[in-house]
């Protein structure tokens, strides 16, 4: 059984027309800079009115042009979000810069093989 720990789908431009096509589903996403450096790992939970679409619309409104995103539709949005944060920490020795400003309480530690 192959299990994908990392979110390694191709980046897409964080732009209004791309984001408008997104599903209103629960899931996780990453926002990256123009070079593909992960800036933030987010989740679209049940409090997001239109799931991933509204979260990425908010990201676009706050960040403006020049960023990229990739996402995964996932009902287990919270455990997957924690996992992506822990895998990033294991790979890079720190959280993405925008998560580091406000890390979730009690984030665990993984050593993915």
């Amino acid at each position, binding site marked *: 059984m192959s*299990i994908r720990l990392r979110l390694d789908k191709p980046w897409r431009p964080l732009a209004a027309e791309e984001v408008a096509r997104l599903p209103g589903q629960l899931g996780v996403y990453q926002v990256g800079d123009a070079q593909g450096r992960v800036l933030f790992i987010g989740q679209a939970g049940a*409090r997001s009115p239109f799931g991933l679409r509204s979260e990425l619309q908010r990201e676009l409104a706050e960040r403006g042009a020049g960023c990229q995103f990739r996402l995964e539709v996932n*009902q*287990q949005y919270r*455990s997957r979000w924690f*996992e992506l944060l822990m895998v990033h920490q294991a790979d890079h020795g720190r959280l993405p810069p925008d998560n580091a400003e406000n890390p*979730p*309480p009690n984030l665990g*530690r993984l050593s993915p*093989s």
Partner: protein
Amino acid sequence: MDFEPSSEQQMLIDQVRRYVREEIIPLEAKLDPDASELPPEDFKRLTDKTKAMGLFGIDIPREFGGPDIDIVTRVLLAIEMAQHRAGLYVPCYGTFGGAGLAQIFEANEGQKERYLYPTLRGEKKAFFGLTEPSGGSDPARAIQTRAERRDNGWVLNGAKIFISNADRAQYGIVFARTDASKGRGGITCFIVDSDTPGFHVRRVVHTLRSSHYATELEFKDCWVSDHQVLGEVNKGFAVANDRLTRQRIPYAAGCIGVAIAAHEMAVEWAKMRSTFGEKLANRQAVQWMLVDNEIDIRTARHFTLEAAEKARRGLPFRTEAAIAKLTASEGGGRVVDRAMQIHGGMGMTKDLPLERWYREMRIRRVGEGPSEVQRMVIAREILGSNLR
């Protein structure tokens, strides 16, 4: 047996009920419906409150600084503590504390200094590592993690799966095979620090629970000293069995609390909602669902208190604990399912806690020993212990 709470018990029940309704439920409105933890400032404020109530760490024995509350009273309080969205797995978000791993009360003095006391002070967290990819229902046969004697210690190699909290814990109780020629008499229990070289938390195991997740572990030439053996070499299975049996009682109490909360919601909704010109509460089809809820709740409550009462009196309670776990997890699941049905479309949404309870209650038919294993324990009692 008389299971009516005494006036002292009733006072504690009322105190916890008020706490859940006034402190926990309003906070949940701000949290993600799947969240299992509070923001640190809320956690601190509420923990201070439960300490002031004298109810912090209710499962800690008096000799270790706990409030010395007997197991029957603890069950009554656990039923109250579970009556909110995250209650089934994280009663009151851990603000009542709790030792978590009762078997380290049996540790030797050095181990108590290093593990038990820091855990009681809230400085360390622990995990319980029994289940392996080869199976969890029958650990005596399934455990393949090996511990081999080397350099005044042991080297662990193997894997565990579905282990809750291992990524956040500072240490864990790990069961490994120390004598391959023996079944249950060849398993030893080790305390493993999470920063030991060769100990790895490989990934999150995503289940329908989402927030309070499990993990997969790997032990790769992980060396632990002789001081890390909990109890005696080759006597680890008794430690596991004792913990599993005891744990079934509070596990059942949590299911009952959630079932009561779901049932209350269904009763309210049925009295309020009209279809075809009549309140739902006037429909026999709905009334009978509510009647079945009531019966499931009372049955589970009776058997859980019976198991707790036997444990309190120091009598054997293995069969009673199995009956409690079975009736509460299966009956509780049915109650939540009926409450969802009575709520129609609303019952399916994340606006209400029912869908979370439905998912978590489903796990309870497998976790801490599946329903079939509970039935096997009860069957052995009925048919005789020589049945294997």
